[in-house]
C-alpha cells in the first residue's frame, strides 16, 4: 500500500541525503515504505518479519507494545498489505494469556507455514509472574497462509517470553530462546515434545537464533561462543572460541551476541552482525563448527569506539552486497542522530553509507535475511512520531514495512 505520507517522508530523505552528499547509486527511489492498515495504535515492530517462498508473501507482527498484536501479510504480487487479524483472537487466547508483542522472526516451515512466537513485551511480564496480573508465557504459533488459520502450538515456558525461534524446514521442529532466563528450547511438533536444554545466557538474552541449510540451529552463550544444536545428534555443541570482538568491547555487548544475520547458501556463508559491531562471515559445516572470518566493523567512524554501533538487521542483495540500517537504541553513526543505510561489499570489505535518514523517517530497523526472488529486501521499520503514544522506554513511534531493492527503482 503506497501512502502519501511516505512519499513526503521520502522526499525529506532525498533532501537530507543530498545535503549529506551521499554517494551516487542508491537513491530514495530504491525504497518503498508501506504502512499497516486497520491498526491506528500500532507502535512498533521487532524482529517480527519473515518471508514465505511458497506463498510469495511477507509477514509482519505489529504491536501497540502493550496488549495488542496484529499479524500482517504483504502480498508481493499485488503490493497489498492486509491485516490477517489480532493474535489473541486468531490463537483463541484467554484474557490471562495476554501477549505484548511478537519479538521472534517469522520463519517459514514445511509447506510454507509461518512460525513465530510471542513475548510479554513489558515489565509486567518479567516481574509479576505468578500474580493474577502476571504473564502466562509466550506461545509457539503457526500461521497457514493458505487457509488463514493460526494454530496454537502451546507455551514454551511458564512466565517466560520467547524472544526468537528457528525452524527446521525439513522436520518442522522448532527451536527457541526464552526471556529473561535465556533457555534454549527444542520442540518436536510431531511428538508434541518440548525439551528445555537449559540456560545459555547471562543477564541479557541474545536476541537472534539462526539455522544453516542442513537444519542445524545456532545461538550464542555468554562468552559469545557459538552454540550449535545438531538435530542428528539431538544435543548442543559449544564452540571453543568466542566470536571475534573489538578490543575493549564491554561485557554487556559481548553477552548480547549476534543481532542479525544473512544467508548466502551458494557461497556457503552465513553473515553475522554482533552487538559489538563486528561483521563476520561464518562458514558452517554439517557437523561440528566451521570457520568464522572477521570482516571488520560494521561502520568505520571516529567519534565512537568501533564496537559502539547498533545494527539489528541485515540482508544480502542479489548483487552480492550486504545491506543494513545502522543506528537506533541511542547509538548512531555519522553526525547526529540519524539512521544510515549501509552497503557492505563482502568481496573487498568496502562499506559505504548509501542513504541517511532522520529519525522522523526511520528510527530503527529490524529483520534478518528477509528477501524475495526479485531481489527485494524487506525490513521492519519504525519512525519517531511525537503523536504516537509513548510506550515506556520504547518511546513514541510508528511502524511500517521497508522494501528496498538496490538494483532497481521501486517508485
Amino acid at each position, binding site marked *: 500500500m503506497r501512502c502519501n505520507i511516505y512519499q513526503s517522508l521520502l522526499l525529506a530523505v532525498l533532501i537530507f541525503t543530498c545535503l549529506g552528499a551521499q554517494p551516487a547509486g542508491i537513491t530514495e527511489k530504491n525504497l518503498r515504505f508501506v504502512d499497516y492498515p486497520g491498526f491506528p495504535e500500532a507502535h512498533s515492530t521487532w524482529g517480527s518479519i519473515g518471508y514465505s517462498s511458497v506463498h510469495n508473501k511477507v509477514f509482519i507482527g505489529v504491536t501497540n507494545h502493550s496488549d495488542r498484536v496484529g499479524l500482517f501479510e504483504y502480498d508481493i504480487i499485488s503490493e497489498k498489505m492486509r491485516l490477517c487479524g489480532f493474535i489473541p483472537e486468531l490463537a483463541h487466547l484467554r484474557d490471562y494469556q495476554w501477549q505484548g508483542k511478537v519479538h521472534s522472526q517469522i520463519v517459514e516451515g514445511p509447506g510454507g507455514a509461518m512460525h513465530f512466537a510471542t513475548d510479554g513485551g513489558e515489565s509486567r511480564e*518479567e516481574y509479576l509472574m*505468578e*500474580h493474577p496480573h502476571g504473564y502466562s508465557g509466550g506461545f509457539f504459533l503457526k500461521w497457514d497462509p493458505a487457509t488463514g488459520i493460526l494454530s496454537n502450538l502451546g507455551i514454551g515456558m511458564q512466565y517466560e517470553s520467547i524472544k526468537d525461534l528457528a525452524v527446521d524446514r525439513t522436520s518442522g521442529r522448532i527451536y527457541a530462546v526464552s526471556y529473561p532466563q535465556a533457555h534454549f528450547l527444542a520442540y518436536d511438533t510431531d511428538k508434541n515434545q518440548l525439551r528445555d536444554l537449559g540456560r545459555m545466557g*547471562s*543477564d541479557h538474552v541474545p536476541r537472534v537464533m539462526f539455522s544453516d541449510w542442513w537444519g542445524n540451529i545456532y545461538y550464542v552463550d*555468554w562468552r559469545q561462543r557459538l552454540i550449535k544444536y545438531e538435530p542428528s545428534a539431538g544435543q548442543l555443541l*559449544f564452540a571453543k572460541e568466542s566470536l571475534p570482538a573489538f578490543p575493549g568491547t564491554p561485557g554487556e555487548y559481548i553477552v548480547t551476541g549476534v543481532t542479525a544475520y544473512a544467508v548466502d547458501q551458494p557461497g556457503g556463508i552465513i553473515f553475522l552482525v554482533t552487538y559489538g559491531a563486528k561483521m563476520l562471515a561464518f562458514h558452517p559445516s554439517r557437523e561440528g563448527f566451521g570457520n568464522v572470518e572477521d570482516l571488520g566493523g560494521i561502520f568505520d567512524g571516529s567519534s565512537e569506539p568501533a564496537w559502539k554501533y547498533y545494527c539489528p538487521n541485515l540482508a544480502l542483495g542479489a548483487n552480492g552486497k550486504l545491506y543494513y540500517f545502522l543506528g537506533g537504541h*541511542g547509538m548512531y553513526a555519522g553526525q547526529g542522530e540519524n539512521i544510515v543505510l549501509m552497503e557492505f561489499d563482502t568481496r573487498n570489505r568496502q562499506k559505504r553509507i548509501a542513504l541517511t535518514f532522520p529519525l522522523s523517517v526511520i528510527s530503527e530497523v529490524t529483520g534478518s535475511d528477509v528477501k524475495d526472488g526479485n531481489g527485494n529486501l524487506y525490513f521492519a521499520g519504525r519512525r519517531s512520531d511525537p503523536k504516537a503514544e509513548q510506550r515506556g*522506554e520504547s518511546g513514541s513511534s510508528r511502524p511500517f514495512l521497508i522494501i528496498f531493492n538496490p538494483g532497481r527503482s521501486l517508485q
Partner: protein
Amino acid sequence: MRRSTGFFLGLILLAAAGIRAEYTFFSPSGSFAVEVSLENSSLLRLPIYRNAITSLEVSGDYALGGTSAAPGLSPFLFAVSLSRRRLELAVDLAQIIPEQRAVISGFGRGPGGVLYAGTMSDSPGGSGHLIQVRIKEPSLVVLDLGVPVDKEGVFAVASDPGRRAIYGISHPSGKFFAHDLASRTTRVFVETVPSRQTLGFLHGYAVKPEDYLSRRLILDGKGRVFGSLPVSRLFRFDPGNQKVEILPDQIPEVWGRRPLGRVDSWARSADGSLYGGNAGDGQLFRLDPDKAKVENLGKPVMMPRIKGLAFGGDGKLYGVGGASPGYAHLFSFDPKGGGFSDLGNPRFTMVAPGIEQGISWRGFRIGTVAASEDGRFIVLGEEEALSQLMVFPVHP
C-alpha cells in the same frame, strides 16, 4: 528494568529524563560471580548438565559444592576459592563411586574442615553412599564411607562432630538413620516413614518422595536432630535416648496445601533458635528446639520454596524464596524486629580468563545458600544446566 532489542536506549532515555528505573538489582559492592560451569573449555570448569549446585558449604577460604547431574551422568564435588574468586578443584564422583547421579543432601560439618554428604544413585533401587569431602591442598579428597541404607539414596544429611555421627534421610522410603563414624555402623529408624494411608493421600496430589521428604536436617545446640516428614510434620531425634519424636506443632500451612509442606532449608541462630523454610508455600518459621514450638514468621515473597537459609555476620538471616518456574528472590530477615527485605534478583559481576572486562551474571534459579564461617560472605549456588556461584559480602 525491562529491556528489549538492545537495552541501552532505555538506559539513555531514563538517564536523560531523570527517571529512576523501576527495578534495581541486588549488586552490593564487593559482590562477584564465579564461573564454575562452562562446556567445552580448556579452563577448569564443570561440563553441562552435571553442575547443578545442590549442596553447598563454606570451609575456610573455600566454598565447597556438590552437584546434581542429568540421568546417565555423574556429579562433581568442587571447591571455589573465595579470595581468588575462581574454581580451583573438582572431582568427578564417578572416579570414587560409580553410578551415582547427585549430591543433594547438603553438607554436615566434621572436625578439621571435614564435610560429610550423601549421594543418590543414578538408577532406581540403587544405593546412595555417605562421603567425606576435605580440602587437602592441592587436592580435594573425597572418600567413600559406604552405604547407610541398602537400595536407598541419601536425601539429606546433618552431622555431629562431637558424637562423630552422621544423620540422614533415605530416599525414597524416608527412613531416618544415624551413622556412627567410629564403629561404621548405621541404625535405621522408621518413625519418619510415611504410612500406607499417608502415601495414599500423597498419591492423590501426584507428589513424589523428592517432593515430600525433608530436604534438610539440622542439629540444635544439644545435638538433637530436626527434620520433617509427611504430612507437614516435624520430628526431633534425641541421640541420648535414641528416640524419634513427632512434634505436636506442624509446619505452617496454606489451607489445602499441606501435602506440599516439608522442610526446604534450616539455619541455626546464635541464640539457638532454629529457622526453617517450608517448601510448600514458602513460609519462614522459627522453632524453639526445647519447647518444640513453631512460630510462623510469614512469607518473604509470593512464591513457594525457601531453598536456602544462612545467617550473615550482621545477624540477619539470608535466604532465597521462589523457584522454578519462577525465579529466586534473595531476601533477608532481621530477627531483631526488622522483618523481611526482598532483595530481588542478585546480579553480580563475573570476571574470568577471556571475559576480563567482566560480565553481569543474574541469578534466576538459586538452590543453595551458605555463609562463610566468619559470616562475612553469603554464597549462592545455582541449579542450572550451566550453574555458577554467586557471592556477596555482609558487613557486620
